[in-house]
């Protein structure tokens, strides 16, 4: 069967991505002059933080998926493996943007992190060995830098076989081993960043007095399920454009399973964090939920948003994606993928904004505009990366396993 190996960006797609990026840049400029230079620059920077970190983690989840499946000797993901790789390319521009934003947060200091001024605050002074400018900048640089470098290495390994077929099974074994080694290095670094230290720095330190041991896992689950949704969206898009002939509903089914399972995993972490704090009922812990959830005679300003987010991220996936048929249906899966990404974007919104502005919800067009800009950037970067390499890694030892995959 002749297959279309190289992706060509459709004109409308390019227009859309450029338009969305334009909306984003416009929103950032307007937002900067509207909020960033005013009395409360935190309003501007909080939105920048939310969007840059969220979309960075979502695209980076693609590389995590690639490495995790490589380590697990998975073969089924290979028919759309190049899509995953292309999504991880977006980590480079998003990482640079996020890095600039994060550095501004500690150097320009728009009152996002109050741990920057620990003097006179016993708790913050005690945490200052960890929460300080130097460590923050170093760790941020290392985090984003190593994601980019290790991601690049993984993509290079995948490209290696394109023009140089592996001669014999022994060469194939060596190739797989080399892949697992680099994937393992990425996973270890991923564990030290997304799954532990980095969300403490970037997000949890907004509430510097408060802490939760679940927080990083929660962040990971949130972005991983969105990342799987993003992969699904691109796979369905390419299928609709007539590419990825080898990827079929069996692969979509497994992607749907990931979306389903990790939505429940996210809920599990959400609940574990919530229930322990609710049960212990210690004021310095429950303060986190004061603006977010309802108590007996108090309902915070973010309550509605919070439960809306919960319904989108838990009830909708569990009820809609439970059936086998709905995970194999391109329309349902696309709808759910968009819904899940939006839901977790809202989740990030409440994680950041409910801590900074506990008195009122400030969600408006500015936030959506910035989000649109990041969406456009991802669309542009991923499509660009897709044109750079054949869509099927035809010499990979496991490619046949992926083609005949069925569930």
């Amino acid at each position, binding site marked *: 069967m002749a297959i279309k190996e190289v992706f060509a960006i459709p004109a409308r797609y390019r227009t859309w991505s450029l338009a969305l990026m334009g909306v984003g840049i416009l929103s950032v400029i307007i937002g900067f002059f509207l909020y960033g230079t005013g009395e409360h620059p935190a309003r501007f920077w909080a939105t920048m933080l939310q969007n840059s970190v969220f979309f960075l983690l979502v695209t980076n989840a693609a590389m995590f998926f690639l490495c995790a499946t490589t380590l697990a000797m998975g073969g089924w993901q290979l028919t759309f493996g190049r899509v995953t790789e292309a999504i991880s390319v977006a980590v480079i521009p998003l990482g640079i943007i996020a890095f600039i934003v994060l550095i501004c947060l500690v150097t320009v200091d728009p009152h996002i992190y109050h741990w920057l001024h620990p003097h006179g605050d016993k708790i913050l002074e005690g945490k200052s060995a960890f929460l300080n400018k130097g460590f923050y900048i170093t760790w941020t640089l290392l985090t984003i830098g190593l994601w980019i470098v290790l991601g690049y290495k993984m993509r290079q390994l995948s490209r290696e076989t394109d023009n140089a077929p592996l001669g014999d099974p022994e060469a194939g074994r060596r190739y797989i081993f080399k892949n697992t080694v680099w994937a393992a290095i990425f996973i270890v670094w991923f564990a030290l960043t997304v799954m532990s230290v980095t969300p403490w720095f970037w997000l949890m330190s907004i509430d510097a007095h408060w802490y939760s041991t679940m927080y990083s896992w929660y962040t990971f689950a949130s972005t991983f399920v969105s990342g799987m949704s993003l992969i699904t969206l691109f796979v369905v898009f390419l299928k609709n454009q007539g590419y990825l002939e080898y990827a079929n509903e069996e692969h979509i089914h497994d992607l749907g399973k990931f979306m389903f399972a990790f939505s429940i995993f996210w809920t599990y972490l959400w*609940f574990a964090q*919530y*229930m322990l704090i609710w*049960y212990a*009922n210690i004021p310095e812990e429950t303060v986190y939920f004061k603006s977010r959830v309802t108590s*007996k005679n108090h309902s915070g300003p973010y309550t509605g948003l919070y439960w809306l987010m919960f319904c989108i991220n838990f009830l909708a996936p569990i009820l809609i994606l439970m059936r086998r048929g709905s995970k194999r249906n391109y329309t349902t899966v696309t709808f759910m993928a968009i819904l899940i990404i939006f839901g977790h974007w809202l989740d990030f919104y409440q994680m950041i904004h409910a801590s900074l502005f506990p008195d009122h919800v400030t969600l408006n067009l500015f936030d959506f505009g910035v989000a649109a800009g990041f969406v456009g950037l991802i669309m542009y970067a991923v499509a660009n990366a897709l044109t750079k390499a054949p869509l099927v890694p035809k010499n990979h030892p496991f490619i046949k396993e992926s083609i005949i995959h*069925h569930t």
Partner: protein
Amino acid sequence: MAVKKFVVGCFDDEGPLFDAVKKVRKSGYKLHDVYTPFPIHGLDKAMGLRDTSLHTAGFLYAIFGTTSMLSFMTWVFTADFPLNVGGKPHFALPAWIPITFEFTVLCSCVGMVITFMYLCQLAPFVKKHHFHLRATDDKFVMVIELTSKTNESEVSSFLTGLGATEVNVQNAETGWWLGRYDKEQKLFVEGQSETVSA
């Protein structure tokens, strides 16, 4: 249940099975079932079996578990025996979620196991006819039901032509029964009925 007449064909590999199933269905013979030592991917589709409704049953059991446990705990802790636990409200929903979850899973899986046993006609003390004992070991056994319109020698030679290494005709009870295997019934088919070997 009824005793019916079957033609039983044994295959050595799963390979020719797909082709055989396709041809049997095309020829219009009534395919009773295929017995294999291990699950074979895609065979259900080839045989034209509909999707199992086991998961629907599991969902219903799960809903039953959730609602019954939640309503039971609500009744106990708000109406029957309200206790002040750490100043929490009597209707302490978050604390009940783990129990509700566990009970949901318990209902769902135990219910599904029982349903599965029922659908497969498996239960303690219940007997079911074996068409070929080696279907649990290394043979792939295809069973075709004989109707008034099919001729047993014709079906036998048809199966042999498809690559069956061993073909025989059996009169068998289709359902399950409580009790024992008939003393007269030999589990190994040699001698009980005619055997056509390839």
